[in-house]
């Protein structure tokens, strides 16, 4: 084996499935597909005063996409759209799209940096959430 993309922390995030599922009565819901690989993310949110009160996601996609959705759900509650953009910056830093050090939990995604074709897998849940919050 050469590299270690699927390091324990990424696999653990995916397995944790934080926020996996649906909300009973979401304020908003949005779906994003990646036409290249077929990954699909549906995000439900309950928004209260502009802030996320509850979040759930259904991912039909790879482990990276699942891990990202799970990590995102673990830090989303209480944030507004601008707060989610800060989390996204962490994700983009982790995969080398932005300068600077990534904060947790997205620092775990550093091994994805050298796999350009997989960057979108990490970012797809953010795209869906952005739409749900717009």
């Amino acid at each position, binding site marked *: 084996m*050469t590299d270690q993309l*699927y390091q324990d922390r990424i696999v653990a995030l995916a397995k944790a499935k934080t926020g996996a599922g649906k909300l009973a009565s979401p304020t908003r819901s949005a779906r994003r597909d990646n036409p290249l690989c*077929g990954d699909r993310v549906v995000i439900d949110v309950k928004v209260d005063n502009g802030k996320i009160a509850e979040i759930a996601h259904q991912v*039909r*996609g*790879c482990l990276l996409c699942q891990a990202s959705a799970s990590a995102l759900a673990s830090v989303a509650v209480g944030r507004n759209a601008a707060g989610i953009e800060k989390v996204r910056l962490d994700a983009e830093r982790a995969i080398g799209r932005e300068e600077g050090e990534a904060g947790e939990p997205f620092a775990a995604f550093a091994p994805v940096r050298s796999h350009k074709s997989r960057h979108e897998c990490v970012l797809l849940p953010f795209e869906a959430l952005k739409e749900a919050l717009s």
Partner: protein
Amino acid sequence: MSFDVNTVRRQFPILSQIIDGQPVHYLDNGASAQTPEAVLDAVRTYETTSRANVLRGVHRLAERATEAYENARVEVANFLSVDPMEVVFTGGCTAAINLVAYSYGSLLKPGDRIILSELEHHSNIVPWQLLRQRSGIEIDVVPVTVNGRIDLNALPRLLTPRTKLISLAHVSNVTGTLVDVHAVVTLAKTVGAKVMLDGAQRIPHGPVDLSAMGIDFYVFAGHKAYGPNGIGVLWAKAEHLEAMPPFHGGGSMIGRVTFAETTWAPPPRRFEAGTPPIGPAIGLGAACQWMRTLDWKEAHAHEMALVERLMDGLQKIDGATLFGPGSTQNRYPVVSFLLEGVHPHDVAQTLDSFGVAVRAGHHCCQPLMDRFDLDGTTRVSIAPYNDNTDIDALLTGVQHAARTLR
């Protein structure tokens, strides 16, 4: 002739590479095959001794280029057992299907019907949908069986007097299944429909005799058949090409041009507007010639022995299942599988870290994936230069993915 895999391997420079300390286990031939020295040499010879435009010059280089280009057409024709004047060079397989959908399609009337199957590549679906938008034809779809074969039992009830064309994959790029051409042609004849086969996944596995098949159109891509990128082939019966209007307009495809009226050149030039991909065509001619140096009976047996080794190995991995037929009968060496609880992209990514190249995803066959409610599959596609070490490296990688990713 006898088949020796090491003799074949040595002709493919890319296979002797070491990347990050690992050999290349290339099992993504269905997406693009590798190319042998003979093809590289032919292209290099053209580029270094005969490079010029074709058909238009009187100088010696132009004559050499034209001769090499037309010889390539003859090589391709020999490979397909057809007349060279029925061989049209295109930019690829997709380009060839679009040519037929546009040009032959323009002869169809609103309400005419064509038949496709559920396992077609998007390139044999979307051009027909574009035609449907342009001219109001209807598209009927033959379903596939649970084994991933086109269900020909369902074909008769789709046939109508308005059915003009049946266009099917000769070999599936997902399941490797071979369509029963004789049955399709026999059924098509009952309503006078034409038959087109998408040979993209069949041609890399040896010569075909299109004249004997009773079909009307055939298409394939050079890069999947050990040739260069940017070249594909349309074969059609002379009478069809004769009746078809041009697809693209430009130089080389004309008889005489005035602003009042332009007449068309006869086929195949009518369909080769502008400067064609000359080097790639010459490379494809060389690829056909190279393929004919192999004993395909033995080469095919070798490929199918690898399929068997693969299927046996997958059977021993907990949670691995085949998508497609479980036998080696009436199929070619394209094998899809699923690993329970692990997404195909993660399987493929893990395999890459073992030096194994495969394809994962929907394989440009979303309707087929929808039919089986799949996110995608992992696909192993084998060429004559693959050997046991390729399959064994793959199986080791799949085992690793099964152990670590779920």
